[in-house]
C-alpha cells in the first residue's frame, strides 16, 4: 500500500505534521532515529513565552497538539507581561519533559493512521521532480505521495565542549549523517547553524534557600480542551552571575570554541552563550539566571542563561561561582551544537520545495530555533501536504491573521541568516494578533480544513455565543441618574448630558468592563470569564481600525497573483536588484513582492503595469 505522506523526524514539527495529516484522513509513516526522542525537549523544559505563547495558542486554535500536550504535562504555568497590555500577554508553561515526551508518543501510537518507525532515512526518492518515496539506511524503501523533512538539529550534527567535539546529536542521541547528501543531490542548498544548551545540575546540591522562588498563576491554559486543573506543582528559582563568573570566563576565552574558530556555524543572537554575553556586553555586572525543574521524579535542574561550550573544567568552576550553585554537581555538561539546515527561501509559503513537488520542510531545518516555531511549521506543512494530495487550495495564513503567518512569511520572503526566533515585535499587526482571540482568528479555518473536531467546535460556538451576548448587553443605554453620576465622578470622568451606552463608557480611559460590572451587574456568571476579551476588543477598537485600514490597502495587492513561471529579468523597467530578488523568491502575489527587501515601490508599479498589460 502506498503511504500518503512520510514524515522524517518526530520532534515538535514532525509530531504536529503527522497528527494533522492523520486527522485529515491521510496515512502517515513517521520515522525517528530513536523513538525515545519523540517530542523531546532538548533544551529548556518549558513551552510558550512571549510570541511563542501566541504560536501555541494559534496551533491549538487550528486543532494542533502542542497546547494540550503542554497543558496536560505542565508543572507550572504563568502569564507573562500582565502589566503591559493585552496584546503581549503571553503564557509560559514549565512542563515535565519526560511526561511531555511520553504523552505525545502515546497519542501518536494510538493513532490508527500513523505508523511509527525507528529508522534513519538516508535518501529521498524523486522522479520527474515529484517526490515518490524514501530509503532508510537499513535498505528499506517506502513509496509515498509526499515527504515532510523535520530533521531538527540532527543533520550531520556535532557537539562541541571546549577542545572536545563529537559527531552526535543532542543529549547523546545519534545524528543523521546520510540525508544531507541526498538533499544536496536534489539541488537543495544547505547551510550550517549553531545553537547550544546549558548544564543540568543535581537539585540536591543546590542551595535553594539563598534564591528567590517563582511560582505560577492558577486557572490558566493554552487550550480550552485540556483537563489538567492543577498545573502549579513545581517552582523555578532566580539567581545571577557575578564578577567572579565573568572573570573565569574572560580568563578562559581562548579555550572557547566560539572564539578559537572551532565553531563555524552561525549562532543566534536570540540565545547567546554566556561567553558571548560577556564579550558583547562587557559593561554588565551580572546576568540573570533561572533554575527550571526538568521533570517530576528527577532532581535535574536546567540552568537557563548559562549555555556554554567552554571546556568541562571551566564549566565546573564557572557554575560553582554562581550564588546557590557553590556545591552544585553538574549531571550533564553544557554544549554547543552545529547542524545542517536549508535556506528557507528555497520554499514556497506552503513550505513545499519550489523545485520538487511534494517535498515539504518544517521546523529547525528551515533555520528557526524553538519548539513552538517548529510545531507551527509542522502543522502548516502537514495541512498543506494533505491539501495537495486532495488537490485543494493550500493554506497560507497572512501576516494579519496569525503569528504563524508572520513566521512563515519572514522565512520565505525575507529569509534568515541565523536561527530565527519568533518575537512579538516582528508582527506589525501585533494589536490584532492576541492570545485571547487566537480562536476567533483561526478556529473557523481549522474547522473548514477538517482539523477541528466536533467537541472543540461546539465549545467554540458556545464561547462565540457568550461573547456576542456580552457585546449586545453593552449596547444598553444608561440614564444620567444619581448612580451614573456617582460612578463617573468617583472615576474622575465627565458626566454626559444625555443617556450613554455602556459601550461608550467603556471607551473612557478610567473605566473598564469590570468597573461597569461591579456597578451595574450586567453580566451573568458564565459571561464573566470572557469579559477581559471584550474589554480589550473595545479598548483597542481605534487602533484595530487603523490596523484594519492598513490591511485593506494591502489586500488590493493580494489580488494581483504572480506566476512562479514569470521570468522577472524580462520585464522592462525593473531594476536589476529587483529582478534578481524576485527571481529568487518567486512571490505568489504583489503583496508578497512588496515585502521583499530591495524591491522598491517604483518596482512594484512597474510590475503592476506589466501584469495589467499581459491580461
Amino acid at each position, binding site marked *: 500500500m502506498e503511504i500518503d505522506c512520510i514524515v522524517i523526524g518526530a520532534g515538535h514539527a514532525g509530531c504536529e505534521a503527522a497528527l494533522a495529516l492523520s486527522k485529515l484522513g491521510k496515512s502517515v509513516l513517521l520515522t525517528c532515529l530513536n523513538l525515545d526522542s519523540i517530542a523531546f525537549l532538548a533544551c529548556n523544559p518549558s513551552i510558550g513565552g512571549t510570541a511563542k505563547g501566541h504560536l501555541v495558542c494559534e496551533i491549538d486554535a487550528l486543532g494542533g497538539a502542542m497546547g494540550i500536550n503542554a497543558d496536560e504535562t505542565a508543572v507550572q504555568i504563568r502569564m507573562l507581561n500582565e502589566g*503591559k497590555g493585552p496584546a503581549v500577554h503571553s503564557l509560559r508553561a514549565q512542563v515535565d519533559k519526560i511526561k511531555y515526551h511520553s504523552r505525545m508518543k502515546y497519542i501518536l501510537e494510538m493513532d490508527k493512521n500513523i505508523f511509527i518507525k525507528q529508522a534513519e532515512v538516508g535518501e529521498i526518492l524523486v522522479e520527474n521532480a515529484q517526490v515518490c518515496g524514501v530509503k532508510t539506511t537499513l535498505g528499506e524503501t517506502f513509496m509515498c505521495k509526499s515527504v515532510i523533512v523535520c530533521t531538527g538539529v540532527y543533520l550531520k550534527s556535532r557537539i562541541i565542549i571546549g577542545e572536545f567535539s563529537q559527531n552526535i546529536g543532542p543529549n547523546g542521541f545519534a545524528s543523521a549523517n546520510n540525508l544531507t547528501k541526498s538533499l544536496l543531490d536534489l539541488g537543495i542548498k544547505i547551510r550550517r547553524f549553531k545553537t547550544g544548551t546549558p548544564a543540568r545540575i543535581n537539585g540536591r546540591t543546590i542551595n535553594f534557600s539563598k534564591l528567590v522562588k517563582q511560582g505560577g498563576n492558577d486557572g490558566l491554559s493554552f487550550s480550552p480542551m485540556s483537563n489538567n486543573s492543577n498545573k502549579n506543582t513545581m517552582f523555578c528559582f532566580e539567581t545571577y552571575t557575578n564578577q567572579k563568573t565573568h572573570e573565569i570566563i574572560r580568563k578562559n576565552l581562548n579555550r572557547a570554541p566560539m572564539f578559537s574558530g572551532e565553531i563555524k556555524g552561525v549562532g*543566534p543572537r536570540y540565545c547567546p552563550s554566556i561567553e558571548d554575553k560577556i564579550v558583547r556586553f562587557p559593561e554588565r555586572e551580572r546576568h540573570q539566571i533561572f533554575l527550571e525543574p526538568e521533570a517530576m521524579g528527577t532532581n535535574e535542574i536546567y540552568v537557563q542563561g548559562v549555555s556554554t561550550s567552554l571546556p568541562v573544567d571551566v564549566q565546573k568552576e564557572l557554575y560553582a561561582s554562581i550564588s546557590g550553585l557553590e556545591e552544585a554537581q553538574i549531571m550533564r555538561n553544557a554544549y554547543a551544537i552545529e547542524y545542517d539546515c536549508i535556506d528557507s527561501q528555497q520554499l514556497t509559503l506552503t513550505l513545499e520545495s519550489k523545485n520538487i513537488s511534494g517535498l515539504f520542510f518544517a521546523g529547525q531545518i528551515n533555520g528557526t530555533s524553538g519548539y513552538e516555531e517548529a510545531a507551527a511549521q509542522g502543522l502548516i506543512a502537514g495541512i498543506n501536504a494533505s491539501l495537495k494530495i486532495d488537490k485543494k487550495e493550500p493554506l497560507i495564513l497572512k501576516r494579519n491573521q496569525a503569528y504563524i503567518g508572520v513566521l512563515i512569511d519572514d522565512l520565505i520572503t525575507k529569509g534568515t541568516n541565523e536561527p530565527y526566533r519568533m518575537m512579538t515585535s516582528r508582527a506589525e499587526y501585533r*494589536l490584532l494578533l492576541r492570545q485571547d482571540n487566537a480562536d476567533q482568528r483561526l478556529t473557523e479555518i481549522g474547522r473548514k480544513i477538517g482539523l477541528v473536531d466536533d467537541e472543540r467546535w461546539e465549545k467554540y460556538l458556545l464561547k462565540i455565543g457568550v461573547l456576542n451576548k456580552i457585546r449586545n448587553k453593552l449596547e444598553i443605554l444608561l440614564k444620567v441618574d444619581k448612580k451614573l453620576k456617582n460612578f463617573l465622578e468617583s472615576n474622575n470622568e465627565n458626566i454626559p448630558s444625555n443617556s450613554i451606552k455602556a459601550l461608550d463608557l467603556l471607551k473612557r480611559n478610567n473605566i473598564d468592563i469590570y468597573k461597569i460590572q461591579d456597578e451595574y451587574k450586567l453580566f451573568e456568571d458564565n459571561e464573566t470569564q470572557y469579559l477581559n476579551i471584550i474589554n480589550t476588543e473595545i479598548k483597542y477598537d481605534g487602533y484595530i481600525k487603523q490596523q484594519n485600514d492598513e490591511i485593506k490597502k494591502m489586500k488590493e495587492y493580494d489580488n494581483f497573483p504572480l506566476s512562479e513561471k514569470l521570468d522577472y529579468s524580462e520585464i522592462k*523597467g525593473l531594476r536589476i536588484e529587483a529582478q534578481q530578488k524576485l527571481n529568487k523568491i518567486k512571490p505568489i502575489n504583489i503583496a508578497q513582492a*512588496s515585502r521583499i527587501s530591495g*524591491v522598491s515601490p*517604483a518596482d*512594484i*508599479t512597474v510590475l503592476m503595469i506589466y501584469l495589467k498589460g499581459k491580461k
Partner: protein
Amino acid sequence: MMQKKGKGKMNETICAIATQLGNSAINIIRISGNKSKEIAEKFFTSKNLNFNFIEPRKMYYGTFKYQEINESCLMVYFKSPYSYTGEDVVEFQIHGGEFLAKRILQIISCFCQLATPGEFSKRAFFNGKITLSQAEGIIDLINAESEEELKSAYNLSTGAFNKNIFEIQNTLKNILAQIEVALDYPEHDEELITVIKSKKELIKIEKNLNELLANSSSGEKLKNGVNIAIIGSPNVGKSSLLNAILGRDRAIVSSIAGTTRDTVNETIIYKGVKFNFTDTAGIREISDEIERQGIEKAKEEIKLADLILFVIDSSRALTKDEEKMLNELNAGKTIMVYNKKDISIVKGINENAIEISSLYRENINELLEKIYEKSIKEKIDTTKIVLTNLRHINILKEAVTILKDTVENINNLTLDVLAFKIKQIWSELGKITGETENEQIIDEIFSKFCLGK
C-alpha cells in the same frame, strides 16, 4: 511599521499640479478620486453653481477662497469614468506663478494625498484609459523621477535635512527598542525606558519637528524664489523699473497712465536666488472696468508677495492716494524706490529706501543688493535646515499629529499601544529616509541589549 513599501493607494483621492511649473500664464491643479468633488466644494464658489447639480465637463468661473487666497479661476468637473484617470476628477485653472499654484495645492492636500510621480497616469492605465505603450513611457518617467529624488537626497540642504530626520528616527528607534525589550523579554533585568522618560523624549522630538516645519516657508523661498510685487501710482515708472532690472523691454512701457492692466511676471536669478517680480497695474481710485480688475489683482499680489517695491516719482511730492497706500503696507517687507533720481526733489532717505533712475539704469544693482539683503540675508538663516519639499512637509505634519496625540494620552496607553504609536511615527519619517524595515528595529534591540536564555 507599518509603513510598508508600495502600499496601495488606488482608492485614495490624490492631487497635484498638472502643468509644468514655470512661467506659464495658467496652471492646472488636478484632483482625482471619489472625494474630489467634495474637496472642491470646500473652497470654490461660483454664482451659478450648485455642487449637487454640477454639470460634468463644463467650465465654471468662480473664486477659490481660503485664508489669504482669493483667486478668480475656472473649475471643471469630470465624472467617472469620463476623465483622464477614469475616476472623478476636478481641475482648477488658476493664474500663473509657482507660488500661487503651490499654495493652493498645499491647501487642497490637507484633504487628500499628494500624488506620487506618474500616479495620475498609473490610474489612467489601470482604469483602461491609456494603452500599454503609453504606460511604458510612464515607467521611464517614474524611474527618472525617483532617480531625481535620489540625487536631490545628496544635495546640501536636503542632505542635512535627511540627517536630521535620521537622528530623530534613531532616537525613536532607541525608545522603541527599549519598549520592545520590555515586551518581548519580560524577565529582562536591565533598567529600561519608562513612560515618563519616553514622554520627555517625544516632546523634544515634537519640538524639533515643529522647528523644521517653521523653517519650511523660508525653504520655499530658496527653492521657488522670492516673490516681489512692484506697486505704485500710475505712471511712476514701475514697468520701466522692471525693464531696467531685466535689462530689456518686456512690459509695455508708455507714459499714458494705466498701461499695465494685468500683472506681468518676470524672474531673474541674483546671487543664486530666484526673484520673481510682478509688475502690477498702477493703483488709483478712478479707473475703467478692465483697469479696476487689474487693480484688484495688484492688491492680491501685495498680499501674496514676500517683498514689495513701492515705486514713487521723486520729482514730485507724495499724492494722497500714495500716502493712503503707504499706511496700508507692511513696512517690514517694503522697499521705497524713489525713481527719477535725476530730477529728484527728495532730500534724505532712510535705510528702507533707495534712489534710482530706471531711465538711465542708475543704482539698479544697488537696488538688487537691497532686495537680496532684505529678503534673504535678514530673513533666512542659511545655516539652518530649510524644508522645500511639499511631500516632506506633509509627512512631518502627519508625524507631529501622531506625536501630539501620543504625548497627550501617554499616561493612559499600555506599553503595546505606545509601541504601536511610536512605530507609526518612526515609519512616517521613514518615508523620507527610506528606513522602514522592521528588521532595523530588531537589529537595534539585539545590538543594545543582552537578551536570551
